[in-house]
């Protein structure tokens, strides 16, 4: 298996160079964001406020980690959450903030894929539940925002080191591996 190494934050051409089916590992910075963080980001931006962190060029990780505080924050377990839950909010967030990578599990809708295509953003799938493997690749907590949302919903600013295997499952050219598998599954299920 040919595994490419990528670094975040990244620019549009780097994001567009990722193709569905590629397997990569990521080093650099990422920000976790789930339902509550997405809601707050959009609420602030719609009201014309600034965000306390930089989403442009960023890797956004759909993850609600287990953290431990022993003098400093450490990641205990940090697998991805179901990205599809964020489909209601993601297209607007992608268009407003221009993140270059979304990382999660299970894939996202055609509306989200459309926004990714427009802006130049790729979706990377990490195996769901592989939380210890992920924690090992997230050795440093750089910051935490919005702790009032609770541990899973807060925005954790983390440093990644060879985080993977990440499958480029949706690319900025409109291809989605999840959609392709789903179409096959639907066809086959009718025959059963």
């Amino acid at each position, binding site marked *: *298996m040919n595994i490419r190494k990528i670094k975040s934050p990244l620019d549009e051409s780097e994001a567009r160079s990722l193709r569905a089916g590629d397997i990569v590992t990521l080093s650099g910075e990422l920000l976790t964001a789930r339902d509550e963080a997405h809601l707050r980001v959009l609420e602030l931006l719609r009201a014309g406020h600034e965000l306390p962190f930089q989403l442009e060029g960023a890797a956004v990780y759909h*993850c609600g980690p*287990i953290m431990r505080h022993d003098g400093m924050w450490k990641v205990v*377990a940090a697998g991805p*959450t179901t990205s599809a839950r964020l489909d209601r909010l993601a297209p607007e967030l992608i268009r407003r903030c221009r993140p270059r990578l979304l990382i999660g599990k299970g894939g996202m809708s055609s509306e989200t894929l459309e926004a990714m295509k427009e802006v130049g953003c790729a979706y990377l799938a990490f195996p*769901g539940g*592989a939380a210890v493997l992920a924690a090992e690749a997230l050795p440093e907590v750089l910051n935490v925002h919005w702790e009032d949302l609770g541990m899973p919903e807060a925005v954790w600013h983390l440093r990644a080191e060879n985080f993977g295997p990440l*499958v480029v499952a949706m690319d900025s050219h409109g291809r989605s591996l999840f959609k392709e598998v789903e179409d096959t599954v639907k066809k086959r299920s009718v025959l059963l």
Partner: protein
Amino acid sequence: MYSSSLIEETVVRLLKEAECSLPPDVHAALRQALEAETEEMPRSQLMAILSNVDKADERSVPMCQDTGLPIFFVRGRCDHRVIESIRKGVARATKEIPLRPNTVDPVSRTNFGSNLGEGMPPVHLEPADQDHLDIAVLPKGAGSENWSALRMLNPSEGMEGVRRFVIDCVVRAGSRPCPPIVVGVGIGGTADMACSLAKKALLRKLGSRSDDATLADLESKLHVQINSLGLGPMGLGGSTTCLGVLVEKAHCHTASLPVAVSLNCWAARKAFARVYPDGRVKFSQEGFD
């Protein structure tokens, strides 16, 4: 007759085992899945999953960050005091293991940090005249729980209607409940009973067959058909979509045919403890016997 501190202690250990070590039947099924897959994509997903399971076990940390809602099943001579001890055990386990505080108020979404709340954790009590107390825990993550489904079928749809509904549920859930999944099915009872049966089915050992011949056939047929869908590990394609199908039933109204489906992710966590009156406790991840 059982001291509350013994029950509390048992609950903490049950949760630790369930969250950090994959039950042997599930582990074996995942290894078998890896052997069966020939393509690079499903193999990459299963290898990552199995390596994650080993690391969690070695380090005694939860295998998945969604440590779920711990659902308890208690059988024996018991009353409200056992629920109080379970609550204490859950709050302690949340701090000590640690578990992710998942329990929130459904309206305000406030998280109180302890995994306790109104009605939480769920405890199913089954009074029984036996000297020992059986406690099982099924920590259930939201990724799979969110795809639970109930349908009140027309009785004339029969077992064919049940089969179709289960397939449709798996297709609709797709990649989202973290396949390869375990499929629990409850047939009959009332609407709420069908849901409970589907959940309780997930405690059964993978590979075990229903005592009822018709249901045993339904289990194997669904297992083969679901795996023929091609959804594969994490929904990225492959020949292993489910690790097993487990069906439970109860009698129902002559005009009803309730069917409920409860899916479990590959991290199909479960642990069992048999507490004896003399204070001995027997732990297992395969069942009570």
